[in-house]
């Protein structure tokens, strides 16, 4: 080893070789990937068509509505603003485990989105501040810094700017957790935001299936997002936090299974070439009884209470 250190050329060759070894799993925009020895051996035993399929790998991602999209869906369904529904700012002191911090980062992000869409400037700053504390607690570097909060304060009267800031901070957190190999935490943030959106929407109905049909529709179609949540969590079965969340989602699924959503016609698309917009249409039927709706309200309340306690 001492001889090596005295010989700079040899040392640099060693460093270079080690780096190639370390970085062989990753790729960048200009690196070329060669077929490995294992795939060459497999190729000898497969016919040409199978080899073509073998070489084409398919990655699958499941994407939940973000806290921002959830808040936008609620507002566009005619929801009103009710600050009493939101997770109190002071509750933040309760969250000391990574799971609780991640869930409530999602919850506070949803609350932040909701307050911003209703131009509640003071509350928005407080919720952003809470989101920052939780992001810091989770070690998410630079997701939300003091400049972000200042930027929010300085642009409070510009809703477009506020939404851009919120979406940027969410993307920063989401990307950081994913790329730091903490996918369960990333999923937990999304689930926290999703449950908060569902909670706010269900509470705003006051238990009635007739007062706001648009909002009811939004709630009912969350059944489709629930499948996404469960598929996301399924990938991390065996992880303690993922198993806990999967258990909670299964309790919700028992109720959503009693909600019927059915396309009654084929899904069709028509494209406006000039404006570059495609409209996707299908007739569908939705069926939910008052009894099932009551069960859903109760279960969402229960899960959200558990997450925020």
């Amino acid at each position: 080893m001492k001889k090596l250190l005295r010989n700079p050329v040899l040392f640099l060759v060693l460093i270079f070789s080690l780096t190639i070894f370390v970085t062989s799993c990753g790729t960048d925009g200009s690196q070329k990937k060669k077929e490995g020895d294992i795939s060459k051996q497999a190729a000898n035993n497969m016919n040409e068509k199978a080899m073509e399929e073998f070489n084409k790998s398919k990655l699958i991602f499941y994407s939940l509505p973000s806290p921002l999209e959830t808040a936008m869906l609620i507002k566009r369904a005619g929801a009103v603003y009710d600050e009493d529904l939101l997770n109190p700012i002071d509750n933040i002191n309760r969250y000391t485990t990574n799971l609780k911090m991640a869930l409530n980062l999602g919850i506070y992000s949803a609350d932040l989105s909701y307050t911003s869409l209703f131009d509640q400037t003071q509350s928005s700053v407080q919720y952003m501040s809470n989101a920052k504390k939780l992001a810091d607690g989770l070690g998410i570097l630079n997701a939300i810094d003091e400049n972000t909060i200042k930027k929010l304060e300085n642009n409070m009267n510009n809703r477009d700017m506020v939404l851009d800031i919120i979406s940027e901070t969410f993307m920063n957190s989401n990307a950081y957790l994913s790329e730091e190999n903490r996918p369960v935490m990333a999923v937990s943030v999304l689930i926290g935001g999703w449950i908060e959106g569902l909670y706010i929407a269900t509470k705003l109905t006051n238990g009635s299936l007739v007062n706001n049909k648009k909002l009811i529709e939004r709630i009912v179609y969350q059944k489709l997002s629930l499948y996404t949540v469960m598929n996301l969590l399924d990938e991390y079965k065996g992880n303690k936090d993922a198993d806990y969340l999967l258990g909670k989602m299964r309790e919700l699924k028992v109720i959503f299974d009693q909600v019927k959503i059915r396309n009654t016609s084929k899904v069709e698309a028509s494209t406006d070439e000039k404006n570059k917009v495609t409209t996707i249409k299908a007739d569908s039927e939705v069926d939910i009884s008052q009894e099932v709706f009551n069960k859903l309200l109760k279960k969402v309340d229960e899960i959200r209470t558990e997450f925020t306690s």
Partner: protein
Amino acid sequence: MIFLFAVYVFVATQTDAQCFSYARAVCKTELGDFVHDGNYNATILSEGETAEIYKTFFTGQEYRIIVCKVDSLPQVDFQIIDEKEEILFDSKEHGGVNIWDFKLETTQQLIIRVEVSEKDKTSNEKVSGCVSILFGIKRE
């Protein structure tokens, strides 16, 4: 010497961080009147590889999909597919566009399939790079 080694390895392994930076700096600029939904969908793909995103799209919102790729990758195409695998939109039929808007009259779960084409199918050397898929929601 040890410091230089550490710096060199650090720089060489930051490919995922570059993907995020790329998505943020380049892809997001094409959102226009749409606000980014905040979700991060980016990954390293190689020629011939496919990625699929399963996502629920809601009625009453107009969406913009932007598919970006680094310059070194060949053409990347995308399709919007329903749960019965029917193709509702194919970018190949629209001049290989990377941005498209769509809206739904009924909420649906759809699949966005993204495929990296191959420059040379006979070659064993495959270029790989960052591909990012962003969704925007039209502002009110």
